[in-house]
């Protein structure tokens, strides 16, 4: 037998302290730390963040460094290919495509972020109130959301744009008219689930006020899914803007966005594909970046989903 060399002392009772016994089970790292560790491993999502940062810098710096502005017509220099003076070439009115691309980036990103932000605010408040108060309040708020959700989003936005005066803010407002519902549903689900959990019960029995519980417990705890939804709302808002602008009912001249640039460039696709190439690539790249960041966040926050 292999254990022959064991001594008497080995058979003395072992006094394990309770704390040691617990330790063996293994320590759990915190949720956010864990999520961040998983997110960092996701090369694609990190790549997405770098892309967004680069685009943001170029959107701000691009115009000034090009030495051109986005609106100046120089008909003599129309439809030029990329060159030393016009890095991305010029369009059919001789405007510098590089300068226009980054100016368009400002407009597209601004609208996308703004619309997502408004969706976030309305959605979080709506969903949190519905989920937190439950009962009749929930019933009414969610019924309204359901009815609005049943209507095709783009159709409503277009109809609203027919009615509203055309400017940047009405565009944003039209885009948020039903865009917040997704967020509201997610927040409501989270709040409903958290509401039943113990620590909320505990703080409630300690006499914490409703708003305090909302602010201190519910919103921080549903932050994960909210962030994911927000990140995935941005590309869809950017898409909607470019879609509407492409149709000629979104951003109006003299403003320019990636959507209007694509629309202007399309008729000459056969001869000057470069005019479409740049705005198109940047729309796709932006949407791609936000999508991979959103996916990465979702995977990182929800370890079960692999």
């Amino acid at each position: 037998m292999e254990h022959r060399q064991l001594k008497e002392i080995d058979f003395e009772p072992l006094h394990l302290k309770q704390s040691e016994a617990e330790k063996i089970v293994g320590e759990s790292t915190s949720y956010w730390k864990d999520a961040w560790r998983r997110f960092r491993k996701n090369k694609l999502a990190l790549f997405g963040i770098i892309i967004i940062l680069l685009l943001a810098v170029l959107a701000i710096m691009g115009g000034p460094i090009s030495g051109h502005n986005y609106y100046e017509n120089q008909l003599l220099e129309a439809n030029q290919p990329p060159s030393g003076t016009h890095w991305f070439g010029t369009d059919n009115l001789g405007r510098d495509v590089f300068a226009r691309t980054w100016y368009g980036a400002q407009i597209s990103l601004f609208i996308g972020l703004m619309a997502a932000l408004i969706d976030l605010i309305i959605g979080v408040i709506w969903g949190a109130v519905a989920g937190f108060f439950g009962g009749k309040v929930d019933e009414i708020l969610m019924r309204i959301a359901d009815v609005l959700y049943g209507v095709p989003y783009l159709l409503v936005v277009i109809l609203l744009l027919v009615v509203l005066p055309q400017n940047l803010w009405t565009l944003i407002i039209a885009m948020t008219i039903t865009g917040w519902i997704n967020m509201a549903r997610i927040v409501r689900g989270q709040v409903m689930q958290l509401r039943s959990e113990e620590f909320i019960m505990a703080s409630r029995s300690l006499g914490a006020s409703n708003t305090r519980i909302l602010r201190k417990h519910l919103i921080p705890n549903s932050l994960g899914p909210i962030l994911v939804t927000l990140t995935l709302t941005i590309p869809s808002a950017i898409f909607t803007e470019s879609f509407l602008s492409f149709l000629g009912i979104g951003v109006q001249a003299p403003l320019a966005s990636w959507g209007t640039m694509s629309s202007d460039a399309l008729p000459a696709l056969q001869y000057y594909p470069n005019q479409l190439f740049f705005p198109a690539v940047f729309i796709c790249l932006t949407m791609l970046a936000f999508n991979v960041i959103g996916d990465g966040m979702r995977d990182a926050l929800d370890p079960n989903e692999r």
Partner: protein
Amino acid sequence: MIKYLLKRIGYIILSLFLIITVTFILMKAAPGGPFASERASTPAIEAQMNEAYGFNDPIHEQYFSYLINAFTFDFGPSFKYVGQEVTEIIGRSFPYSLILGLEAIFIAISIGVLLGVIAAVKHNKFGDYLAMVIAVLGISVPSFIMAAILQYIFAIYLQVLPIARFESFAHTILPAAALATTPLAFIARLMRSSMLDVLNRDYIKTAKSKGLSERVVTYKHALRNAILPVVSYLGPLVVSILTGSFIIEKIFGIPGLGSEFVVSVTNRDYTVIMGTTVFFSVLLLVSILIVDLIYGLIDPRINVTSKEGNK
């Protein structure tokens, strides 16, 4: 069954009533009537036109006559195209959109489901990564850019397919593919996660424990259950194809209902806007009903004929 259908049709009529009312209010609230000054017409002519179209009647009378007309599907003449009835415009343009839409739906579902299944079966292997790269690209490339890319590659560069218009089957391939891109990618992702979920279910273990082959387990047991979320997505799919047609028909110069709608919006051709909106709504409500009926066929737990069909 009959009772269920009648109930559903009742809801459809109710929803339509709401939609018609809301569009009426919206159009009344629109700035500058249809005959407002941007056109070279004198105020006198404008007043005359308003009179002719009944715009000077009290608002509730306008509403009721509009309501009656809408339910008999009579939206009157177009403001813009003299002598053309809205119904005529819809009847003329819808067939194009229908063919295009059905083709796109077919492409999106067949390829989307295929990609999703491959990804799930080859989970965390090359096939999975490839399918998901295609899917995330599909979600990130807007349909109008996809349209331009397809036009450039197949019509301009390779010259194998016509660039625009709608004259033969070949003409429909590019627009249908462009229209299908985003929903295809969406379905692929949906199918993948649903399939992964189903493959972990106990009944898949049961099927394997009977000695069935991997293939039978995947295609006979898993697929039918995993496809249910895709069936629920058919409603949103129809919406996506429909709104996508606004832009795709414009790019490909197809005289379908989508491009008529966009033209009417830019022209503020109110009768056409209202007519197409109501028509779109009917289309969607009916497709949702059909989707629910299909769902009931695939999932025996949903019994459309009785109320207690448990989920």
